[in-house]
């Protein structure tokens, strides 16, 4: 910046830079947030409009009764996540989080593979009896309905 520019103009330059940066941040954030709408899926949404293979997303739902299986390698777990309308097979290699049980809510972070299996890097289960992942609050009711329908 040349020192010949008057102080007033330099002040203006600062204000313009500040405005551009802040407006830029807003636009950038807005643009990035729009794509976040396709970041969280429940199984039926993932069936209808699947994310592209390899795209990092979250899948949320209920772990189906009797679906948790340990594969022969001893560390990979497969289970099925359902939302009452659709089911989604999930694979996770790792230590299961505390309180990860059948019939409870889970959010899996990971990506869909070419075989239509959701490969999770991380499982967000309940932290304790009071904590359900935010995305799953409505799911408990749906699951209760499903359970009632099954016993009829």
């Amino acid at each position, binding site marked *: 910046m040349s020192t010949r520019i008057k102080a007033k103009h330099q002040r203006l330059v600062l204000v313009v830079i500040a405005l551009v940066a*802040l407006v830029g*941040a807003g636009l950038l954030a807005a643009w990035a947030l729009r794509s976040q709408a396709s970041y969280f899926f429940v199984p039926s949404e993932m069936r209808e409009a699947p994310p592209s293979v390899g795209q990092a997303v979250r899948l949320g739902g209920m772990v189906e009764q009797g679906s948790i299986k340990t594969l022969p390698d001893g560390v990979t777990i497969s289970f099925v996540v359902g939302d009452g309308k659709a089911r989604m097979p999930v694979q996770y290699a790792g230590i299961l*989080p505390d309180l990860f049980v059948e019939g409870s809510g889970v959010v899996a972070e990971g990506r869909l593979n070419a075989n239509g299996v959701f490969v999770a890097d991380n499982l967000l289960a309940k932290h304790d009896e009071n904590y359900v992942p935010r995305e799953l609050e409505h799911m408990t009711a749906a699951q209760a309905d499903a359970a009632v329908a099954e016993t009829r």
Partner: protein
Amino acid sequence: MIAEFGLAALWLAAALAGLQLVMGVSALRNGDGPLAILVRPVAVMQGVLTVVSFAALVALFIRTDLSVKLVVANSHSAKPFIYKLAGTWGNHEGSMLLWVTVMAGMGALIALLERRLPERTMLATLATQAFVGLGFYAFLLLSSNPFERLPEPAVDGMGLNPLLQDIGLAFHPPTLYLGYVGLSLAFSFAVGALLTGQVGPTFAKVMRPWVLGAWIFLTIGIAAGSYWAYYELGWGGWWFWDPVENASLMPWLAATALLHSASVLAARDALRAWTVMLGVVAFSMSMVGTFLVRSGILTSVHAFAVDPERGSFILALLAIYIGGALVLFALRASSIAEGERFSVTSREGALVFNNVMLSALLGIVLLGTLYPLVTEAFGVKVSVGPPYFNPVGAIFALPMLVVMAIGPLLRWRRDRLQRVRSPLIAVGLLLVLVLVGLLVWRPFGLLPLLGLGLSIALMVASLLPLRGRRLRHLPLAVWGMVVAHFGIGLALFGMAADSSLTVEKLAAAQTGDVVAVGPWTVKLEAVEPVAGPNWTALEARLKAQYRDGAVVTVTPQARSFWTPPQQTSESALLTRWNGQLYAVLGNETEDGRWQLRLWWKPFVTFIWYGGLLVALGGLLALLGRVATDLRRRSAVRQIAQRKNEIAKVRGA
């Protein structure tokens, strides 16, 4: 009796806050009336009473008084002493009482210690502090009374959430609160200065050490919280962009910006309106965080109260305080005279740039945190996570770090880049070298690569202000800046190293099996049951060896608590200077093998060492300011004394 005593002290403190507000306002309107001299003592009394009330609650928890509802709900007679103590603030009511105690305590401290501010501004500040405090007293006394008794004493308590039964977490909330609520002083000083129109270097100098103090606690609190999540949740991650984490990051970003703009205001009398605005924003972010965490609008380990009434109460307080301050700002901003001018290429210019970038980051985090709440109002469930925060945040963080490396080398008011050309070129060259070297060495992702290069350049550059100075005579404040900036570089290095160099091994091992992870070999010796004060556990005995080094035993556990019944996994960490071995014990497989998850995380500890250095830098700067202030006071005293002596000699 203790409970009633505590409640009475709290009501009395609330009444004094009301008195403080009324007296402060009337003194402001009528000039220095007789009421004015009472405002400070009232503020001090108010602080003392809240401390008494909080001590009463602590006593109830330590005695496990089972006639008090809160104790029954959050404690248990069999719990270790330290967690009985921590149980005091490990719940909604107790933590709100802690909030009020810190708020009133801070008010009492400035009433006792702060003498430099013009008296009228001081009165306005204390009145504001009382006004904000009143809202929280009302919240506590009307909707969350911590001293409520049960009609019949319970047989025993229900225990504390086992995830919170951890020494790191026991003292995490008070640390965070000292930071969070300490920022209320920034708000009160800002509003006080707006009310009297006295925004200048004195205002900045007075506000700065208090904000610095709060900021130090906030920094330590964030670092400690991150480390807790890292080892307690067993995922090996240290930042999850959880709304609760964001709730502490946002006030930190605002307070960091405020500290920098306050130093421009103190040294150069520029950025007046901007500094006042940041003072308002910083505490507003604390309140937004509290609202997010306490409203039940999001659920998390930290969200104690799923109670819409409480949420609306805090929302109303938010609207009154933030809205009020912003209206005041809009009315008064024009009356704050324009400050000194400066050139774009100057220390001020760099600090303004840093401020803008920090504000942009704050905005990005705020938008990302609130966005899911907004879309949910329209019936769309969305979650915002790392794919949003990491890249969008990096776009603003990276240029900020570059300017952060150069800024401290620039002169105030006006400078030319040519003058700092040689260090600039050196830093740039180093950056290029690191990048090329790393690219050749192994392929990295773009962000970790930039992170590694920038962090090293930043660490080197942060030491440059020491060049050619006599180190023993360098002011502590400069040391503080150097240490804090170096800490940011170190933390960044740890983050980049962790995200690019971590090695993970997942195994199902029989006893006797050896698993290799990075440079480590880990042998599973045995899995045995062990018992603690209020839990039992399966404990794996692992023999770990780094290359040809000594064999060390690590013992990850899978714990079962019985009050309340719950499982947690206790990871085992083995720390070396160049990283950490992280081990988690999983379930037993059907064929009798044990799941083990092992990570070798090179340099991961630098993240928290860096965080502590940042806090230490703040502490050095604070000590420097306090020392300067004490020297100034003693000089003033000496001059007065000398004058007296001279007058005596002349009179005699």
